[in-house]
């Protein structure tokens, strides 16, 4: 299968994403934000982390109006898998492909560390090789990762099983201590209702090979590959 990694001015995890996406015999290519189409052989889109447009105005607010985002929205509407990591998650919320918004971390600090995530859903294109209720270790690196949505949105996320990853302790307990940024319900990653768009603040591509210290993140890419190959 083939991944497309969107590159904005200020993306800085695009190469890591390309590396992770190219493992397991897959191919991946960059797609520049000014492009007006997504090549027809692309099976899945990755919106990588970084500081697109310098985070001007709000994180993701300017990128969301790039040429390529119109195509990403069409791609997502067609049911193909789209994953936004960190700044990519912020862009997806600004583009209304995912509900809610990411606020400044509760501590105000930029936080860069490993966190544990509880996997709530295993029947998504992004988690089908993981076990429900298992715990994975993935790094975070963000200043605005504090997930917020109004009460109705939170309820609908819960009712539709869209809260895929929650910050937890090593045993999978959802505690305030395990919440690095103040996110509502310890939310670390959500999907859209259709489950084909995932946004997550942690960086699975940074833990995609044991040489990097851990390969828990590889499961996200394995799952996408598995989803594409079985559809």
């Amino acid at each position, binding site marked *: 299968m083939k991944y497309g990694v969107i590159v904005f001015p200020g993306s800085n995890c695009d190469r890591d994403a390309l590396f992770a996406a190219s493992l397991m015999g897959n191919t991946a290519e960059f797609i520049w934000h000014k492009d007006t189409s997504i090549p027809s052989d692309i099976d899945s889109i990755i919106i990588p982390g970084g500081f697109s447009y310098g985070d001007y105005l*709000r994180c993701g607010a300017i990128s969301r*109006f790039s040429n390529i985002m119109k195509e990403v929205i069409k791609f997502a509407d067609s049911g193909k898998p789209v994953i936004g990591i960190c700044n990519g998650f912020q862009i997806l*919320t600004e583009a209304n492909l995912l509900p*809610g918004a990411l*606020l*400044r971390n509760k*501590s*105000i600090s930029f936080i860069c560390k490993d966190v544990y995530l509880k996997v709530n859903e295993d029947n998504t294109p992004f988690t089908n090789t993981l076990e429900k209720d298992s715990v994975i270790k993935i790094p975070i690196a963000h200043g605005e990762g504090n997930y*917020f949505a109004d009460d109705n949105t939170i309820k609908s996320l819960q009712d539709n099983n869209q809260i895929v990853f929650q910050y937890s302790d090593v045993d999978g307990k959802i505690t305030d201590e395990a919440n690095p940024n103040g996110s509502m319900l310890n939310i670390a990653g959500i999907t859209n209702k259709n489950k084909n768009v995932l946004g997550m603040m942690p960086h699975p591509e940074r833990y995609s090979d044991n040489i990097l210290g851990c390969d828990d993140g590889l499961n996200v890419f394995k799952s996408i590959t598995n989803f594409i190959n079985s559809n």
Partner: protein
Amino acid sequence: MKNYKAKIYITLRENILDVQGKAVEHALHSLEFNNFSDVRIGKYVELIVLAQNDGQAEEMVKSACDKLIANPIIEDYTVEIIE
């Protein structure tokens, strides 16, 4: 058509904890500005808009705020139009 200046004030919605505001409030208190409370930090945007009249200018600016300048999920804004 005429040029109008728009002054746009953006703050986090009231039900959202403004962590920057809280930090500044604590700092103010540690400087013994004890009479200060409810500090809110926001953004200020200024722009010139070409419109038929101030009503149209305001309408255009509000539409831009809803689409880009503010995020209505988390932010409130007020617009002031000046000739």
